[in-house]
């Protein structure tokens, strides 16, 4: 007897939920339209000179040829330092929650063969991306993303550590970006140039140093985030055993 009533009620509830989501969608679309209108108003207000000209004009003094890299590692280096800290915080947050879950089963010969081709290629491409960032699109984040991708592939192919080294080394690799960035900045401050104020002569090499450290840190962080938990002593027992059984081609250790 109660069944039809329940049905009717759940039908009504579903209808109401649908109406509500429809209403929300309409309201959000309206908000989007208003924001777009305001955006074009801002764009055509023409009050301000665009920053791009100034940014381009200062590129020759920044130590790199690529304006995007100049913004990221020179003009607004401080933001990038904090972004690296955000990445570190994300991995530490993941580690604080649980030990790493076990990896996937070992891959078949076909996949393992492909991995042994792709992973070295990714590492080489990552190095290329890092270098090319000085004068063309590229840089630490792209290079780090490629390293991270290599880690993801290695884990998918069955290595539970994603090719990362043991916990002690991994912790150093994770903080390498923040550490190098902050230390270079502080060293410049102690020498009297000002925090993260590169002398033009040294700018190129300091930026390369920071970017290399950042690449390793970003790659490690992305791979560690994909592993999804801290490499704890408990988790390491079985995983270390499996890792030692894995062929050496899959041990991707971005060693500094």
């Amino acid at each position, binding site marked *: 007897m109660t069944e039809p009533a329940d049905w009717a009620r759940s039908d009504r509830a579903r209808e109401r939920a649908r109406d509500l989501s429809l209403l929300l969608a309409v309201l959000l679309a309206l908000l989007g339209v208003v924001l777009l209108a305001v955006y074009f108003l801002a764009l055509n*207000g023409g009050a301000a000179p665009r920053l791009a000209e100034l940014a381009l004009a200062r590129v020759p003094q920044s130590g790199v040829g690529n304006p995007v890299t100049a913004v990221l590692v020179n*003009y607004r280096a401080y933001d990038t330092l904090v972004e690296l*800290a955000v990445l570190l915080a994300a991995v530490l947050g993941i580690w604080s929650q649980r030990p790493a879950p076990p990896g996937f089963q070992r891959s078949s010969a076909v996949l393992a063969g492909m991995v042994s081709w792709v992973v070295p290629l990714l590492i080489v491409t990552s190095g290329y991306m890092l270098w090319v960032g000085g004068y063309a699109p590229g840089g630490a984040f792209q290079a780090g993303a490629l390293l991270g991708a290599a880690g993801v592939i290695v884990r998918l192919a069955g290595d539970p550590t994603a090719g990362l080294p043991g916990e002690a080394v991994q912790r150093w690799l994770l903080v390498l970006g923040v550490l190098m960035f902050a230390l270079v900045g502080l060293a410049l401050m102690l020498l009297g140039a000002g925090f993260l104020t590169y002398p033009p002569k040294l700018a190129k090499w300091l930026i390369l140093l920071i970017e290399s450290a950042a690449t390793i840190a970003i790659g490690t962080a992305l791979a560690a985030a994909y592993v999804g938990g801290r490499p704890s002593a408990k988790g390491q027992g079985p995983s270390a055993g499996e890792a030692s059984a894995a062929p050496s081609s899959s041990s991707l250790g971005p060693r500094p």
Partner: protein
Amino acid sequence: MYSNLLTDPLVLCITLPLLGAALTTALPRHAVPLGILAALATCSAAVTLGVDVWQHGALRLVLGGWEPELAIGLRADGLAVALALMANLVALGISVYASGYFRDPERMRAFWPLWLLLWAALNGLFLAGDLFNLYVMLELLGITAAALGALTGSREAVSANLRYLLVGLLGSISYLLGVALLYTAHGTLDLGLVARAIAANDRLFAVDAAALVLMVSGLALKAALFPLHFWLPPAHANAPAPVSAALSALVVKASVYLIIRLWLDLFAPITGLAAAMFLALLGAAAVVWGSWRALRAERLKLLAAYSTVAQIGYLFLFLPLLAVTPPGPPRDNLLAALVLMALTHGFAKSGFFLAAGLVQTNAGHDRIDDLGGTAQRLPATTFAIALAGSALIGLPPSGSFIGKWLLMQGAIESGQWWWVIVVTTGSLLASAYVFRVLSRAFGLEPTPLKFVTDARAEVPALLLSLVAVALLGLASGPLWTLLALRAGGGA
């Protein structure tokens, strides 16, 4: 060189905790001594910064030696330094408390780097002079706060803090949209330069107003302004005690600071009385609703969390008063009262949460009705709760007594008498919920022999509460001088 030396602490306040975080991550076995070392170093950098600003006026630093439009500026004026000093002293107290709090070594290792990153984000936020840099700091603050809040690993803590993380992200994105609009319209991200552009160009009122709405509503979500406070009580009540203290006393305060900063510095030419009145109405609702829920709360930490909702509400009551008061001593009084209330709440609420954490670990629970005899078992802790509670009520001589007094005076002088009713109601409810805890805490057991039972945990809570009651109330004079040190302008 001289000016370099002067602005050094500005940079050190942010880089020292970052370095500490990196080292505690890399050397987890030495996390506690390294963490304490970083905490001491950061705190002394903040104190040095305070002294420098006190002696030489507001400081400003453009990083990288570029034009201010192109680079990121840091700045420390009276308002920023007052809040940064409070945050660093409270954070030092929390660090000392936390060094003995975590029994599980895994938790302890996870705590220190995240805590130092959160500290860096707080200092970065208080001292930032750039709209986008503020966004990055908000991100770091939100992620570390949610991760720390979920550190107990219980189901409630994880779900509450996941909600907190998502809410925080929504708030940050809304803020970022506002920043994008301002940047498109005015071509710079520097706070001082944008403020000047907004004042100079009233044709772009619609854009500025849209940015104001987006940024303030995003930050109000993060600051848990009623009715956007829904995420706060579960997130703060389920976190480990030192983290609850940091979340309630500092993290929420950072968003409020940012709202005040944007409201008074950036958007001053376009904020009218109506907008201020709207925020103050929400604040009034927060005062009444938060205090009422705190009174009805069954657990001590939930009580403290709802009390935070109420205390945040008070800060918004100042906005319409500031809007109608012309520059001069009455306005300075209002601004100082606003900051004084924020500072007092920072010290008092951190002391309260630390003490509540100790009660919880000692009794094994924090149900208020079953707390009988706490006063006999933990006299110093109960004293800390009583002190912090009297600061939350606003009893003399606490800092919030002066704050509320000046708030009511300002309300009557500017003809907005209705805020007096809100403040009185809130204070009455606050005394009810504080005395409810205290009346339960005293049992019939004999008087204790020892006042302090666990110095490392009890002394920080006691000191923080004491600062809220005695120091901020009896010696709040310098705050007026400090707040008079405003940044001269942009570059």
